[in-house]
């Protein structure tokens, strides 16, 4: 074989791989675009928050199902008083807050005891999920429904399970301790369950970045973009992820993830599948996939629903170091969840979940970053070895980048035309600017971190609680 033949073969192989990647990019972006369009159609049609009259009727209704808010906390002494205080002020007629202190090394428990006047309670667990030993249970002597479970450290999933064991309500909602829920968030969140109580087993809401928004008396009083570009990039990314993907998957009843920061579950269903899994960092996704697996195996009717309106505000990382850790952890979680339930992949027995959602997550969410990175590397190599001209490389690169921008701007537009949470012109301009800029460097950085997470996941690296540097909520100026 002479040198010329080898060169031809290399060229052919190169173009084959490059064409494959272009096709892959086209398919993934078309699916994203379809899902975004679906979200647009669905939200314009179904975006129907309760009217004031309906809210009043619900608040007075004795038939409203009770909810236990499970709040796992680990080293949250800085923010736990404020966030639990916010959670005790929600508009819902019948709920309790169960904070689980997962063996914090800081003053989390002491802060809770002093702030909410806790006393040692004899409350015994109802559920039988296995967890690390519970040291003490506390209740508040104030007229509030607050239970604090102090247990040995066992990770987030273990803490949530301990909370579920202690919960007595038919519905449990898992909320991160650094989050703020919209005042009427519980009412909106419970709506799918009220519409179909027999089949709805899990409901997910929208999570948004609270950085630099003003918070007063447990509610976000002024919504605005952050001064930090990293936070704004994530704000747009969250819009794209929640509005773009989840509405469409929810319509197909094949939603594979409900955010661990904000999810409502039927307690009985969580107990039936064995609770949250300790041995994974993506316990939120793993639980949902396991629920699909369990119910489809038994051919029991069920629904996992996403609702766009109730919003949970959470502080997103403002430093690249913390963000990198978070994204690697999320990617590892995706790998672990999909690997554990690989039996569902392309298995017609699991319907749309097995034939569409699972392959989609495997191809585009799990391996997507690796393919994207390979595409960049091949283009660079092609340029170096003069296999492709700079013009062609630039054109294809531009198509890929501009498609990303189109998806981001679509999500921002969707937000503006449905919920309009950012009312000022300044914020709109900033969001659109961010939607363009995040595709020019930030997305590629995330891709690189996700590839690292993928490698760690494939190697089987374990992890515990994610570490987040808290800045605290920004207080509204005094009137």
């Amino acid at each position: 074989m002479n040198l010329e033949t080898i060169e031809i073969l290399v060229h052919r192989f190169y173009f084959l791989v490059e064409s494959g990647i272009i096709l892959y990019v086209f398919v993934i972006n078309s699916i994203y675009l379809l899902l975004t369009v679906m979200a647009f159609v669905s939200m314009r049609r179904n975006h129907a928050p309760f009217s004031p009259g309906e809210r009043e009727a619900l608040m007075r209704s004795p038939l409203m199902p009770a909810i236990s808010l499970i709040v796992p906390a680990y080293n949250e002494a800085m923010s736990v008083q404020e966030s639990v205080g916010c959670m005790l002020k929600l508009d819902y007629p019948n709920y309790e807050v169960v904070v689980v202190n997962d063996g914090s090394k800081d003053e989390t428990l002491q802060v809770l005891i002093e702030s909410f006047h806790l006393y040692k309670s004899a409350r015994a667990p109802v559920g039988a999920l296995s967890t690390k030993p519970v040291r003490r249970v506390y209740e508040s002597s104030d007229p509030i429904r607050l239970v604090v479970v102090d247990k040995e450290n066992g990770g987030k999933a273990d803490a949530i399970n301990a909370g579920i064991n202690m919960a007595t309500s038919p519905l449990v909602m898992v909320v991160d301790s650094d989050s703020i829920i919209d005042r009427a968030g519980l009412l909106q969140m419970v709506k799918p369950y009220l519409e179909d109580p027999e089949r709805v087993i899990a409901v997910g809401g929208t999570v948004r970045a609270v950085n630099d928004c003003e918070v007063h008396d447990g509610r976000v009083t002024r919504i605005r973009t952050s001064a930090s570009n990293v936070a704004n990039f994530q704000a747009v990314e969250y819009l794209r992820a929640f509005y773009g993907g989840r509405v469409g998957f929810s319509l197909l009843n094949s939603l594979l993830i409900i955010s661990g920061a904000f999810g409502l579950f039927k307690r009985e269903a969580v107990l039936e599948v064995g609770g949250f899994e300790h041995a994974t960092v993506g316990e939120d996704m793993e639980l949902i996939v396991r629920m699909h697996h369990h119910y489809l195996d038994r051919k029991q009717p069920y629904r996992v629903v996403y609702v766009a309106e109730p919003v949970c505000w959470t502080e997103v990382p403002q430093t690249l170091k913390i963000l990198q850790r978070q994204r690697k952890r999320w990617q590892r979680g995706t790998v672990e969840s999909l690997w554990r339930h690989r039996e569902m992949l392309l298995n017609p027995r699991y319907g749309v979940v097995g034939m569409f959602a699972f392959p989609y997550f495997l191809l585009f969410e799990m391996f997507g970053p690796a393919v994207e990175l390979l595409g960049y590397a091949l283009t660079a190599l092609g340029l170096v070895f003069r296999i492709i001209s700079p013009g062609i490389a630039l054109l294809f690169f531009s198509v890929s980048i501009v498609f990303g921008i189109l998806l981001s701007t679509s999500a921002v537009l969707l937000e503006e035309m449905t919920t309009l949470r950012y009312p000022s012109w300044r914020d709109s301009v900033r969001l659109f600017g961010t939607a363009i800029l995040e595709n020019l460097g930030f997305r590629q950085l995330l891709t690189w971190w996700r590839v690292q997470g993928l490698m760690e996941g494939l190697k089987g690296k374990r992890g515990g609680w994610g570490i987040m540097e808290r800045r605290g909520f920004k207080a509204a100026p005094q009137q």
Partner: protein
Amino acid sequence: MLSRRLGQAAMWLRGIAILAAFFYPVWTLHVHVFAQRIEEAPLSLAASFLTVQAGAILLQLLASCAFKWAVDLREGRSRRARPRILRELAAHVAGDDRRAALRKLERRYATDFDRSMERFLSLVTGESRERLTVLASELRLVSRWERRARYANDREQRRAVECLGLLAGARGGKALRRLARRSTPLVEAAACRMLARSADQRGAEQVFSLIVGKGYLVRVLLAGEMRRHALDLCDSALPIEAASVDTRRLTAALELAESWRMALRLPFLAEMMQHPSPEVRARALRLAPLAAGGQDVEPYILAALDEDSELVKAAALSVTASLRAPSLLPLLERFATGDSGELARLACAALRGFGPEGVGILRKLLLYGDARSAARAAEALASGSGPALGLEPA
């Protein structure tokens, strides 16, 4: 179910159509413009893609600006128009004839006029509401609301239903009855709520009969509204539902009765406690403490505690405390030490509600029972008493 599936299919079709509308210009540009200038087909396709993408982004930016501008404009108009409309409406209600001015305002600010009328209607009653109803009719607002209630999106439909429900003399009754029968759950609930609000006994019976056949959301939204008619419904509608063979309707009716949490005349209760369906038996048992007229339910409770169904047992345990029949104590003690956590918890709570005899058994369990029973007994003894019971402060 079928309508939900059809709705979803329509949504997917619309989504695919929009996507096709995006790809069509890509192909057209590729074939008619770029292919003639660029030799390589993939490059021509990429160039047309890029052009359409850039155009779509530009369109989105323009749409966003237009939308925001429209919102600002609308808000500005509302700020100016609403006080004027409310002033004129107030004068009209007070007896002045302001129809001419109001007609002009309605033509100019239709949406704001609707909102102001809705607000005013909800604030006034009697003659004033009658006067506003006549005005709404003359300005053709009623027909507009009826149209909107039928065709608009879910949010507008509910709004129109609330307006129709506020009209005096049941003017919107026909439209409301139609919507209460067949629509989305929230629109049905809104229509039922407005009908129930102005209903006499016969009307309340009709609404009750409608809502027991609807989903849980409708019942949750209507439970409070129907409480006003509870006593009448116990004499009329509830016995009819009790004779029904439809278990779902029957369960829903008993669930609503239980939600009213007031003493009720329930002569059919004994029969319900022997119903073949465990759901109905459980619901009937939960109603027992509310039954007025001193019915002897103890034998039914005893029978229920002996059943296989956990649902029925739990219902029976939850009402035993209110009966305080000493014959139940040994049974409660047995449940309190049983394997089922949920039933044991209920039994302990019932023992605590029994008074000194029950508390004595709980103390015995606390001292001599196994760890699980002792924990439950301690929990029951401490429940509702807080730190005052002698539990050490944290």
